[in-house]
């Protein structure tokens, strides 16, 4: 028995020795590889959970089709006898064809097989359009909107957070902290509706967030029109995100400014702006970088409401409609894709942390 255990541990050592040597030689690389492996595992579990949840929801896409046929108005010229054409056997056949009569885990493994082995996201169950086409047609719009939001929030949060940390305790600081708290707590959907009403009443801005003509029609005009259209939704997104980030940066700055090393720097006569920007400020980057991936995730999920209210053609709306129609292929691909982006953001944030903070060196304590 002892010999067997020794043999097994020997095999394990042999198997894992490349990993150990990789970790020793390239600690950051092995860390990144590890994070990607964890990311793949998380995506797998997430997909499993999504399939399971969709299974728990009442009905499926075939029921949706049936409802459409039963209850849709389609008799304006007396050409259709909608109510007479609904046949349950036909629906069962359709369910079997789509594989929806199988347990959800079988459906899930089939989906994974198709994606991993054949690199095919499949087709939307209801429209039969390629999922990759549906996602690609909206992805750029979502990325553009959310990245602009992220950049604006970041820039203004840093400027205001650092500035007001220097004014801590003053009336202006009190007012800004109060408004940051209000913005942080203000319901995003209400802000969007209020801004849309503002646009409608004043006629200064459009009530939708996207130009009514495509980029290809007039590229120059489109850029200006896009900026005009997207201003209010961006403002809502910016106001919704800046409160929390600004408060975090201000608090971190104040925390750093109270540290003994800052007192030490000041006692050595180093200029105050240098203390702020070369020392205290650098240390605020860590919590921001860690939080920015979450912020991006929040922006993606938060932009769904924006996309619906302001009719912005982003990926959130696509997913929302897919969930309502229980188009599992589309839902799963969408969720996996967005989750992949967010997880990737988190991994990149970790790598960035290692790069910006000399104290963090993976594998070297």
């Amino acid at each position: 028995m002892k010999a067997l255990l020794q043999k097994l541990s020997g095999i394990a050592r042999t198997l894992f020795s490349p990993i150990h040597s990789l970790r020793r030689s390239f600690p950051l690389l092995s860390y990144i590889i590890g994070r990607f492996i964890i990311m793949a595992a998380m995506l797998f579990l997430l997909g499993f959970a999504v399939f399971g949840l969709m299974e728990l929801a009442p009905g499926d896409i075939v029921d949706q089709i049936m409802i459409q046929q039963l209850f849709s108005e389609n008799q304006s010229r007396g050409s259709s006898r909608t109510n007479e054409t609904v046949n349950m056997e036909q629906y069962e056949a359709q369910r079997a064809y789509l594989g929806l009569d199988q347990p959800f885990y079988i459906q899930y493994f089939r989906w994974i097989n198709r994606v991993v082995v054949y690199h095919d996201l499949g087709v939307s169950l209801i429209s039969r359009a390629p999922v990759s086409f549906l996602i690609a047609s909206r992805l750029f719009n979502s990325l553009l909107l959310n990245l602009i939001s992220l950049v604006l929030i970041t820039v203004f949060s840093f400027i205001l957070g650092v500035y007001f940390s220097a004014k801590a305790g003053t009336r202006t600081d009190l007012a800004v902290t109060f408004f940051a708290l209000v913005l942080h707590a203000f319901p995003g959907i209400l802000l969007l509706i209020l801004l849309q009403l503002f646009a409608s009443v004043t006629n200064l801005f459009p009530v939708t967030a996207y130009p009514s003509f495509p980029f290809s029609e007039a590229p120059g005009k489109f850029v200006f029109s896009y900026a005009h259209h997207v201003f209010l939704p961006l403002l809502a997104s910016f106001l919704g995100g800046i409160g929390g980030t600004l408060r975090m940066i201000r608090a971190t700055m104040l925390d750093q400014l109270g540290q003994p090393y800052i007192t030490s720097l000041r006692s050595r006569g180093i200029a105050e702006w240098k203390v702020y920007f070369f020392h205290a400020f650098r240390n605020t980057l860590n919590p921001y970088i860690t939080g920015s991936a979450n912020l991006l995730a929040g922006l993606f999920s938060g932009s769904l409401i924006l996309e619906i209210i302001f009719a912005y053609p982003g990926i959130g709306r696509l997913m929302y409609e897919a969930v309502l129609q229980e188009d599992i292929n589309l839902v799963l691909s969408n969720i996996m894709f967005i989750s992949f982006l967010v997880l990737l953001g988190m991994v990149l944030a970790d790598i960035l942390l290692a790069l910006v903070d000399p104290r963090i060196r993976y594998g070297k304590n």
Partner: protein
Amino acid sequence: MNKMALILGAVLAAALFSCSKSDEISIEEAEAMAGGGVDEMVAKTTAKPYKGQDFVSGKLGGTWNSVMIQDPKSFNLLIAETDSQTAGVTDMMLDYLVDYDRVKREWIPHGASFEIIADEAADKLDVIYTLRDDLYWTWYNSDRKIKVTSDDIVFWYNEIRGDPECQSSGYYQQFLTMEDGSDAHIEIEKIDDRRFVFHFPRIVAEPLLATNMDIAPRINYEEAKKNGGAQGVMDIFSVNTDPKNIPSCGQWYLVEYIPGQRLVYKRNPNYWEKDSNNVSIPYYEEEVVRIIPDENTRFLLFKQGETESWGLRPEDMDELLNKPNPDYTVYNNDGALSASFWAFNQNPVNAKTPQYSWFVQKEFRQAMSSLLNRDRIINQVYRGLASPKLYFFPETNRYFDEKIKLAFLYDTKKAIELFSSIGIKQDEQGIMRDRENRAIEFNLTIASDNSVTNDIASIIADELSKVGIKINIRVLDFQKLVEQLTRTFDWESLIMGLSGDNTFPSQGSNVWASDGNLHLWNPNQESPATEWEARVDYLYNEGAYTVDEEKAKVIWDEFQTIILEQSPLIYLVRPKGFWALGNRWDHANVYYDNLRGAETSHIFLKQ
């Protein structure tokens, strides 16, 4: 600090005042307020029903801007059968065989003329269609032009609709129930390039209803079927297709689709329908349809003049009707032809519940109808802009008869009498109890996506509480509600609406026939559960096969009378329709009524 205290005090005082009871109003006051000013409101709108007036000649040009709720799923005609949004898109590029004139209550030629030949001796019937000579498949910006022929119709009928693998909703329409109960197929036969005939195995009352269909392009679908079978057919013309490759025989070409953003149509100059100056209609050159999911955003777009028309909701009335110098005209109609209804579950799977024992008694349902305060619903929910639905068939139905009217209108005394006749009486506390001393209490399920239904349910609950009946309102996701209706059958009572308006009496076989899967109160019966349902089945079947209008009227009169008497579904109210159209358009050819909706087929820009 003192200032702060003062401000806080003022805010608190304002909050307290806002909570005071003196601001509340009674139900009666609310009713009076809601119902008031109806005539004034209607007076600010225009009534212009279409009665077959001639259209004046218009001029070409302009862009019609409209909206749709969500993206089309596909441009494929089979998928369009299962999705109304998709059908709305594909219909623009198609034409159809015949039309039904809802004013004159008769069929009229459209893409084809027709002739019905009945052989009474053999009990067989033929419908011969002759396609127009000027119907063509054409492509945008192309000289390609292919004549629409009988082969298009025969192919679609036999190879697409008639192939069960294609899962077309039209498949079961191709069969008729014979007198011996067996099913027989309605055959189609090509006569020549323009003529084809449907052979009916027995005489039916509405042969055109069963055979009227969209004209689909055989050229694309035949090739798809040859290469990929039924799956190939379903896979063509998905949304990643270049829409310019889709042929049109209708009024429009689809020339652009940007997912989540918009669709653009261009006028088809080859379309056969022309005005008196031989100009093809429609007059406007382009239609841009933006995809706007939110209803309020769609409304704001109309107010900003970015869309041409808007169907008014009750909450829009004040704003749109009281706007000074509006740049639109609001039209009104007499009220929807169909209405939502209140139904009671009579499915024997619930036989052990007390509710079942109440619901299966017609007196109970009649009493419920007598407790339905339709006027209160009209005043409070629809601000007086609705009317009760008292007839089973709408005015567009040939067998509509003013004399056949619902007898159980709002009358609490009558309701109590009806309850009493089945042993349901109020106890000393005023609670209504049945013979077994069980308090009358049941659930009323409504769909979660409709605030109007919620208001109606609250009124029903309040009215019933006045006679000691407790109603528990259950708000349910529509999908879950449908699951209860079609699978679990564990609902008690519900409010919902069905599509269609019974313009043709034989429509709705899966609702009115006892074996129908949408015979809501007790579906899929192997044999009729009650005598009256057996009689309705018989009349329904007889009516569908009776051509002689006098004989048919006797049948359909009895059919309507039984349904109104038995009240398996208690119809609610018919909301009036209001529709606004921008004034940059010439309104000479614009009409709006409850039979055809908005008639804008000949609309053109003002000179």
